[in-house]
């Protein structure tokens, strides 16, 4: 049973080497390398930003800024932390900063979803029931709205932990490194996020 672990270890080494080469090319100002960096990480970083901000345009802007920061600061990148970790860290910080910035202003981006459902009472479907199938549910704007509301009600830092775990599949140790927090904090934030989301979805209250 050693074979799979050897393969994994070889893959990890190959990935590390490829990452090192990419970073070297980036440090030399190679534009192709920069484009391939965007292609490799864009979707993941946009997902992370979206998980925190719940705003598609904002997430795109945030991740564009992340890549510009990377382009400018690649020389200061310490390869020990890992490129992916570094990118996640910048994205999370940028997203949290953006949210602070917007909080001081106001929500000028009007969502049609809100307008269409305003004034209606939305009864959330029951978890575990037939109706509660992720693929069906997300075709229902009402449920999407409720889910988004509950998600937005979570503290920003908790959302960051939740998206890194649930969407990006990072381990507790990786999340702790990205956010510079303790492993125990990762675990408790995840537990509370799940508890709140499930409770809210079950009872229809935040």
């Amino acid at each position: 049973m050693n074979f799979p672990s050897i393969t994994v270890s070889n893959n990890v080494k190959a990935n590390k080497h490829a990452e090192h080469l990419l970073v070297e090319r980036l440090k030399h100002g190679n534009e192709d390398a920069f484009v391939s960096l965007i292609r490799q990480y864009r979707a993941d970083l946009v997902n992370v930003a979206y998980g925190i901000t719940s705003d598609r345009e904002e997430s795109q802007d945030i991740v564009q800024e992340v890549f510009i920061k990377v382009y400018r600061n690649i020389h200061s990148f310490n390869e020990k932390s890992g490129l992916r970790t570094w990118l996640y860290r910048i994205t999370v910080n940028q997203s949290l900063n953006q949210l602070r910035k917007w909080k001081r202003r106001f929500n000028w981006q009007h969502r049609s979803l809100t307008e269409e459902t305003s004034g209606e009472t939305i009864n959330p479907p029951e978890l575990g029931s037939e109706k509660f199938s992720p693929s069906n549910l997300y075709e229902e704007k009402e449920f999407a709205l409720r889910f988004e509301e509950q998600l937005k009600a979570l503290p920003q830092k908790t959302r960051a932990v939740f998206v890194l775990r649930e969407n990006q599949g990072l381990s507790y140790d990786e999340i702790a490194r990205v956010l510079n927090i303790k492993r125990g904090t990762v675990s408790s934030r995840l537990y509370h996020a799940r508890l709140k989301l499930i409770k809210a979805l079950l009872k229809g209250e935040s």
Partner: protein
Amino acid sequence: MPKSLCHIDPIMLSQFIDGEVRPDEAERIRKHLSDCPDCRKAVNDNQLLSSCFKNYINLNTSRINPSAFETNVLAKIDQKNEIIRDKIKRLLFSKKILVPVTAMASVVFLLLYFSYRFTFLNSDGPIRRFPVQTSVATAPSAIIDSFSGETTAVMIMQTPNSHETILWYNEKV
């Protein structure tokens, strides 16, 4: 069976879902799950929540156009490089540097000119005129000096290409 004995610590159950418990503990929880419908439901709820969240993110971000995104990033970098070049230009041509440099250059030029004239020519030589360079910055169409009123928030932005100022305010209801 008393409730405290029946159920797994919820934080540990959350860690189990994430594959973050020791193998022996994972085994113990797995055994417990086969006997306990409540804990099984808790695990199922968490898995459904996880799928919901993934769907929520994917549905909302999958419509982003990758090539437009790429073009935007590269254009922004070009634009920022241009701004930096412009800043350097403005610094070089700012009064703080331009005035002493021009003064020094004029003194040096006059010294050279007169020494050349009096030493070799003793006649009028041609005088060249140097064009003055100016840098034009892309300024916003409007500068907001002040604002006040019954508003909950005010935001100042500008359009990306023509740098037209946008002043957005939220009326207090």
